[in-house]
């Protein structure tokens, strides 16, 4: 836009034209027989000559009109749909999976509509206003920081792409709030975030369907929020898969696929669900009825598929009925061929452990090696431990000098890390709580288990307490790089230096002990009859551990694009490009063979619920959605320029063709 000097110059143009017109610097001389008649003719024109000249000079009037039109065009007139008052605006635009729903008129997606509305807001900004754009899904992305450049804002707005991620507005709010509130940072992790500009109040426009994670403990401060719900007012028709798993928990039944189907509509629906194995229709269920707002489970029998299975098989579950949100109509899974994990058990002579691992079920799951603790000192162990040959090592009252490159279980001992600490053994130990939500404690009941004495554990950051006694944590699992260490604070059989054995717990006598060991083998040993991992959700990091250590792997996404990864220190690979749902394959670059496949599924009941939330809760504030549509700003200046052009042509025509009015 023009500055003050520009306006002054522009304002001087019409008087200048007038002045030049009166000065008449260039009059063409013409010799005539006599000026007698001409003088007589213009005699009366001398009266009020200025006005007479003005009245007669069509060219001057046209020139003035041209200048005025140009000035008007420079003013950039437009019909402003909504006058934005205030200096700063922050536009938060939801780009999560649910924004891809096409429930708006003329099949527009919610994101497209939101972008359109933000564009209108940008158009209606004053020249002095500044705005920023933040897009968010499960993470926030500051697309454009504060600027007055409207075309830049619009360009950045257009760059916002649809994602298949979940939605979490908190990070976006944090970014916005850091710029609007004094003393806050938009990046909690960084200590170098220095506030360079004064924190000013800003209007915060949130364009979302409201399907966002709850934001607790957040104060908007100087932000004046305005929530613009995006989506159809009527609850759109959507039936989607919110969970999909393949398991064979019950040996009698065999392999089964389970799915959870959610109907977020306010009407009952019946859908056709089809299960594809290796892209071939395996099973289907017609007219699967789901009531309005309800979720129903559905299962498919996959019995017999595991027999003779040598490579992984992709499984796809599809809802055949189309709706406005196609993303949750498909779910992917993988059936891996049976694989045994390698478990090393270092124990003196624990008959219970030996007994448990003799069972058929665990034999199927794992190849177990029993060794005395002295085995730790052998080169064989050290090599194997470094190479990550074992999937899991169980240390029964012993500990290695250096932690192996695999998951570990410590029974009555501690990992060689300062992060793990144990108190003196305390008597008696009463188990008061177990975390049954953790896979390792799945189906484990400890109520009737006696433990004589146990140490209380403190572990590394991120440790999960699995079992707690009256005095503290007695079993916990904590991370170590890409591995996990399970520490049990009490031994089952204590060995004295003389070789005497004392039973410290009657846990092995209970059913929960073999179940626990099975969970350990499955959870920490990676042993299962098949890999039933549900993979991950779009946008999440995927930790890939190859069967054999390798120098690089290639990950191929469902579209066919590949990316090569290098191993981290713990020989695992991290893949961060799982942006869309589908089946990803990992290829070992050394052997050029497929190492594994993993599915990426939406599986988010919040994203599958397309009902537009009328209000948005942010911390203790409830923001009521304003559904008013933003009238489009109409720009008139291009028309003015067009008229200018027309006037110019007319002027030229009049000058050259001697047209008179």
């Amino acid at each position: 836009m023009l500055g003050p000097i520009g306006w002054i110059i522009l304002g001087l143009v019409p008087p200048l034209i007038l002045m030049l017109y009166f000065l008449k610097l260039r009059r063409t001389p013409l010799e005539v027989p006599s000026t007698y008649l001409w003088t007589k003719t213009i005699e009366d024109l001398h009266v009020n000559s200025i006005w007479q000249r003005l009245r007669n000079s069509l060219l001057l009037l046209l020139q003035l009109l041209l200048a005025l039109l140009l000035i008007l065009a420079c003013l950039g007139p437009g019909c402003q749909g909504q006058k934005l008052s205030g200096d700063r605006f922050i536009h938060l635009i939801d780009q999560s999976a649910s924004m891809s729903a096409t429930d708006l008129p003329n099949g527009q997606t919610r994101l497209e509509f939101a972008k359109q509305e933000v564009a209108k807001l940008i158009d209606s900004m004053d020249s002095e206003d500044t705005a920023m754009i933040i897009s968010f899904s499960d993470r926030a992305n500051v697309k454009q920081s504060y600027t007055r450049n409207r075309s830049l804002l619009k360009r950045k707005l257009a760059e916002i792409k649809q994602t298949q991620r979940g939605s979490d507005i908190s990070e976006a709010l944090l970014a916005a709030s850091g710029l609007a509130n004094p003393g806050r940072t938009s990046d909690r992790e960084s200590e170098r975030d220095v506030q360079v500009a004064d924190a000013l109040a800003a209007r915060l426009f949130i364009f979302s369907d409201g399907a966002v994670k709850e934001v607790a403990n957040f104060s908007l401060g100087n932000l004046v929020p305005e929530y613009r719900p995006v989506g159809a007012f009527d609850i759109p028709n959507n039936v989607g898969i919110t969970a999909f798993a393949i398991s064979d928990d019950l040996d009698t039944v065999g392999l089964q696929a389970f799915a959870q189907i959610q109907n977020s509509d306010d009407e009952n629906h019946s859908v056709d669900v089809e299960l594809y194995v290796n892209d071939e229709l395996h099973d289907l269920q017609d007219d699967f009825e789901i009531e309005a707002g309800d979720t129903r489970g559905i299962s498919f029998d996959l019995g017999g598929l595991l027999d003779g299975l040598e490579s992984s098989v992709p499984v796809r579950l599809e809802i055949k009925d189309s709706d406005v949100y196609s993303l949750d109509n498909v779910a992917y899974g993988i059936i891996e061929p049976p694989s045994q994990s390698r478990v090393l058990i270092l124990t003196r002579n624990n008959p219970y452990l030996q007994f448990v691992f003799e069972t058929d079920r665990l034999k199927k799951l794992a190849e177990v090696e029993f060794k005395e603790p002295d085995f730790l000192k052998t080169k064989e162990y050290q090599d194997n431990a470094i190479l990550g040959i074992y999937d899991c090592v169980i240390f029964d009252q012993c500990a290695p000098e250096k932690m192996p490159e695999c998951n570990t279980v410590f029974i009555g001992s501690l990992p060689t890390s300062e992060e793990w600490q144990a108190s003196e053994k305390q008597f008696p130990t009463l188990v008061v709580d177990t975390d049954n939500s953790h896979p390792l404690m799945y189906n484990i009941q400890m109520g009737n288990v006696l433990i004589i004495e146990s140490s209380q554990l403190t572990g590394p950051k991120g440790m999960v307490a699995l079992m707690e006694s009256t005095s503290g944590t007695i079993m916990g699992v904590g991370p170590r790089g890409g591995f996990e260490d399970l520490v049990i604070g009490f031994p089952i059989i204590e060995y004295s230096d003389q070789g005497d054995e004392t039973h410290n717990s009657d846990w092995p006598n209970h059913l929960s002990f073999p179940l626990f060991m099975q969970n350990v083998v499955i959870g920490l040993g990676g042993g299962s009859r098949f890999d039933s991992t549900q993979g991950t959700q779009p946008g999440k990091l995927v930790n890939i551990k190859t069967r054999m250590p390798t120098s690089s792997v290639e990950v191929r996404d469902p579209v066919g694009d590949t990316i090569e990864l290098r191993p981290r220190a713990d020989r695992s690979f991290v893949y961060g490009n799982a942006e869309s749902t589908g089946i990803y394959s990992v290829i070992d670059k050394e052997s050029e063979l497929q190492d594994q496949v993993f599915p990426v599924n939406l599986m988010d009941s919040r994203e599958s619920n397309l009902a537009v939330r009328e209000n948005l809760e942010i911390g203790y504030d409830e923001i009521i959605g304003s559904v008013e549509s933003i009238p489009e700003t109409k720009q008139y200046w291009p028309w003015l320029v067009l008229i200018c052009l027309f006037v110019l042509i007319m002027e030229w025509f009049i000058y050259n063709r001697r047209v008179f009015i």
Partner: protein
Amino acid sequence: MSKVLGGISESKKNEPLLAPELLSQLERLELVSRKIFRGRMKGERRSKRKGQSVEFADFRNYVAGDDLRFIDWNMYARLDKLFLKLFMEEEDLHFYALIDGSSSMEFGDPNKFHYAKQLAAALGYIGLCRADRVKVELLDASPTSDAPVLRGKANLWRMLQYLEGLQSGNNCTLNEAMKSFALRNSGKGILVLITDLMDKSGYESALRYLVARNLDVYLIHVLSQPEIDPDINGDLRLLDCEDGDEAEISVSQRLIDRYRQTLATYIEQAREFCARRGIVYMMTSTERPVDRLVSRYLRQRGLVR
């Protein structure tokens, strides 16, 4: 370097004053005067003066000194009174053609001065054919004039030679020129004044001199087409070719209309002035051919027949 309104055509300037085919056409015509003037010599037309022609005019009483040859003796025999028998006298006619030689006459295509010379030659030739006294001269304020007085068809070449030799650029006022003419010429007759009337001092007093001389005056107002319908545009500084006067105009349709109106008023005023004083006024454009002007328009006005 200024442009010139209408331009000057050299080719038209070099055209002969009288085309041979026009000569034969003109020979059939004669100049007509609405008044009967007394000529100096016997001519071919009836004079106001009673003379010796065969045509009887009147009787009058004899007074001492009258020529006895004209006494009507038959009348004396019958009435015993002396009467003189009067006959009509046939005389020649004075024909004056006055050409405006001011610079403004040099404009137009064909140029007004040339047109005026052509017209004067044509009318002069008619007069020569009818043995009238023809005098063609340039408007001039000087007390003497070298213009020859011609009579008889044989003097055509002298007249043309004299006309060819005339040069424009004599910017005297119409008033001065007329005054000078009136002083120099006492003879009565027909006077054709060929001018563009572009005289800032006015034409009225000039014409009064002629009216006072009791001449049969014809005023032929010659204008070029660009003067009648100016084809100009833009912002102009008009330069008067005679006195260098300037007029700044910005051409618009309104101005052009106003000019046309002014011209029409000017012509109308001149026509009215002339009509009131018995002067025959006629406006012509240089685009109207001289032969058509003479054979049709001047015939209608009664100058020729």
